[in-house]
């Protein structure tokens, strides 16, 4: 049998940051014309490896071969010219340019724009037909859906002559349906001989779409497998280095009284657009209500209103018997005193102040607590001690209260926030994206803690874009689409397809599955 032709061969790549090996003798072989998955926990070294391949970083040592040629990239231009393209997690597009203008950005060719534009249009139309990438070339980026924007990124890479495409967590921002579309494009690309490298932490995508899969852990390549000969449990264990419980154990529990009641809630944003429209639901003590939806469909507005950060436009909210409406706002500090804790969706923009030390961050929202601080003066020593205790209880590493928060990994930052919010013995918990950017080991820990809170009788409202997470933790699921509730499902009877349709508001709502 012929030795397969490799599109990419990486041999003994080493890269260190400080004392840490980001990549330690990493080897990778990607066969031409295949879809190759790379999985690993956050910080396992996937992104570093791809950055080396794309010319962002230079390896300390090691060999890179592209289509059999040994190369050393000094910058990403050299990588591009050797046929490598990359679709980043955050799109690199100019919002108010058209698709066409975005694609030729950087390769305008000549002083006069229109000539380059004409040729680019011809080429892009050809590419679009060949690979089934349908995009209106004259639409501005801001008018396109996220899925279409991603297609523009793919077109951009192909236009620059990419024969190898690297995708970094491409489905994080997509609905399940859009993700399906993307996978269809993958197949089309593969049929035309394009090699695809898919970086993801979603095991089901790996199983579903890839031909081969490489697993990274702690800077090392721990396994390379043919996808059809492995399974999710196997891969998860390889990633974490031990057995992982993918399904969260949770016993059934009787619900208690209603602690949070949302009644015909509507919220206008500063541009007078309805972020939430006529939303009503209840959360009982001892249950987790999951809010599913593609991000940007009102989840953030819901968390902000419930936590007192932004104002109600219409309707009302009852929190532990206290009524809050447009005329009677209750501010976040008051809500905390009542017993409402909030783990915000965006931990870096809201949950933490990255320039603050861990101990300073451990009292955000509670700095006025008389048990910690005096009337004016802060008791910094006490804050530090309390923080050390929190860090111990939630296994935050390194357990150094004086360390600046930006020096903690995402998972440890999140654990610090959870420790802060869970430790106050709240009655209601609002939790947004608890595991975004958190590695698998920490996810398991966080999920366990959330279930513990539920079991001890808290009312938990969980907002997440991860359907797996919503389905495994929640008791009931509410789906938001475009600011209104597009579906209610009992978690036990929920499946991904139904939820996906609800998220796209394409499900027949007369047919609700909620059992109670």
């Amino acid at each position: 049998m012929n030795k397969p032709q490799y599109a990419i061969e990486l041999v003994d790549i080493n890269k260190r940051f400080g004392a840490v090996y980001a990549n330690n003798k990493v080897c990778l072989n990607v066969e031409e014309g295949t879809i190759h998955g790379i999985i690993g926990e956050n910080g396992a070294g996937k992104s570093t490896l791809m950055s080396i391949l794309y010319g962002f970083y230079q390896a300390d040592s090691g060999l890179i071969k592209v289509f059999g040629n040994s190369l050393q990239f000094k910058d990403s231009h050299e990588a591009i010219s050797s046929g490598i393209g990359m679709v980043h997690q955050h799109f690199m597009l100019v919002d108010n340019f058209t698709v066409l203008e975005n694609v030729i950005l950087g390769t305008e060719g000549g002083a006069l724009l229109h000539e380059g534009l004409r040729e680019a249009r011809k080429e892009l139309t050809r590419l679009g037909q060949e690979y089934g990438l349908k995009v209106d070339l004259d639409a501005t980026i801001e008018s396109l859906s996220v899925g279409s924007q991603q297609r523009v990124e793919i077109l951009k890479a192909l236009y620059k002559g990419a024969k190898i495409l690297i995708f970094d967590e491409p489905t994080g921002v997509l609905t399940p349906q859009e993700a399906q579309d993307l996978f269809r494009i993958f197949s089309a690309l593969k049929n035309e001989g394009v090699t695809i490298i898919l970086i993801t932490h979603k095991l089901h995508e790996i199983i579903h779409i890839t031909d081969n899969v490489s697993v990274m852990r702690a800077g090392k390549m721990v396994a390379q497998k043919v996808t059809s000969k492995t399974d999710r449990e196997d891969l998860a264990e390889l990633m974490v280095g031990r057995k992982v419980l993918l399904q969260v154990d949770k016993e059934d529990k009787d619900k208690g009284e209603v602690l949070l009641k949302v009644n015909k809630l509507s919220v206008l944003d500063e541009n007078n657009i309805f972020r939430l429209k006529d939303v009503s639901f209840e959360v009982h003590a001892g249950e987790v209500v999951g809010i599913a939806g593609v991000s940007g469909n009102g989840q953030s507005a819901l968390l902000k209103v419930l936590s007192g950060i932004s104002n109600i436009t219409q309707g009302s909210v009852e929190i532990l018997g206290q009524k809050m409406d447009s005329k009677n706002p209750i501010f976040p500090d008051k809500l905390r005193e009542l017993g409402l804790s909030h783990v915000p969706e965006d931990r870096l923009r809201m949950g933490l102040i990255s320039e603050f030390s861990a101990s300073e961050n451990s009292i955000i929202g509670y700095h006025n607590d008389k048990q910690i601080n005096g009337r004016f003066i802060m008791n910094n020593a006490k804050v530090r001690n309390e923080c050390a205790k929190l860090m111990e209880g939630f296994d935050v590493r390194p357990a150094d209260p004086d360390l600046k928060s930006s020096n903690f990994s995402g998972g440890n930052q999140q654990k610090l926030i959870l420790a802060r919010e869970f430790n106050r013995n709240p009655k209601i918990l609002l939790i947004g994206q608890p595991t975004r950017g958190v590695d698998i080991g920490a996810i398991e820990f966080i999920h366990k803690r959330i279930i513990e809170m539920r079991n001890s009788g808290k009312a938990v409202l969980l907002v997440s874009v991860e359907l797996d997470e919503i389905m495994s933790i929640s008791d009931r699921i509410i789906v938001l689409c475009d600011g209104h509730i597009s579906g209610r499902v009992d978690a036990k009877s929920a499946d991904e397809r139904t939820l996906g349709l609800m998220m796209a508001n394409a499900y027949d709502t007369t047919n609700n599955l909620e059992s109670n």
Partner: protein
Amino acid sequence: MNRDTRINWINRLILPVLNVLTAFAATAIIFVIIGVDPIEAAEILLYGAFGYQEGLGYTLYYATNFIFTGLAVAVAFNAGLFNIGGEGQAYIGGLGTALIIFAIDPNTSAWIFIPASILGGLLFGALWALVPAYLQAYRGSHIVITTIMFNFLASSLMVYMLVNVLREPGNMSPESQLFPQNSWFPFIHDLSTNFGFVMEESPLNVSLFVALFFAVIVWILIWHTRLGYSLRATGLNSEAAIYAGIKPKRIILITMCISGALAGLVGINELVGYQHRIIMDFHFGYGFGGIAVALMGRNHPIGIIIAALLFGVLYQGGAELAFELSNISRDIVVVMQGLIILFCGALQYMYKPWVINALAPIQKES
């Protein structure tokens, strides 16, 4: 020492020192071009600023002003506000001081006059900052713009006050009559005489201790109080502050009042401490200088005291330079100050990559 600590020290100490040295080097080149021996100039500058008691007195006297305005800028900056209005707040603060002094019976004891005049400066400076703060918090007018405009308003208001209200009858200069003697802050050289040391006369007065006292207060306020915590949280991440239940609008008002109040104390040093009357443009340059001082001092009271001292040296040593060397005009001194601000403010991180490479490199081998 681990790498983070090293980088901290590089940011706090090594970079500012390098920047100041660069500014001096650039000044030296200019001196050579205009035919001045830079070594001689440096000797004159340093001797003028530190070499004898009177010179040192002037240096510390100017530094006192810069401590006040530097602290003012730093407090606002820690809350993410750029208070460019130190100039106007200092001016109006001086007016408050003068008005309170004139309102009190001249025979009142100094123990009433001293706190009252300080209070006047604090109060009027705070009020002058309150309006831009209100406009920022509740009307969204950018504080940089409004505080600049308030500098002009202060200037016009003070012209009116000095020309039409406070001017001593028969005096052509726009200045008030002398403050009652009981209100004068003691000069350091007078105090030292009381303790048996004879010192050369200089304008240095007890306002320096007021400034140092407020530096300690600011340090406590920012890093050891709940208000300071809220203020820093708002400055670093206003969304997180709102999440924490802090009301940024209130923080803007409170912070700007504190900032303005501190700037308002320039009048204590200038007027109550030395001129003993309110005069036109006594504040000139200190408000803007305070921005550079705060930048150089990394918005920390200790850094501000050091940077204020440097500016005091430039003011006093620079005057000495213009005095001694006929081909150095007062404008060259302004150029020197400009270079310091350029290298320490605008180009403050110029050397950072190199210094970090040299002193805190990313370790290749462990």
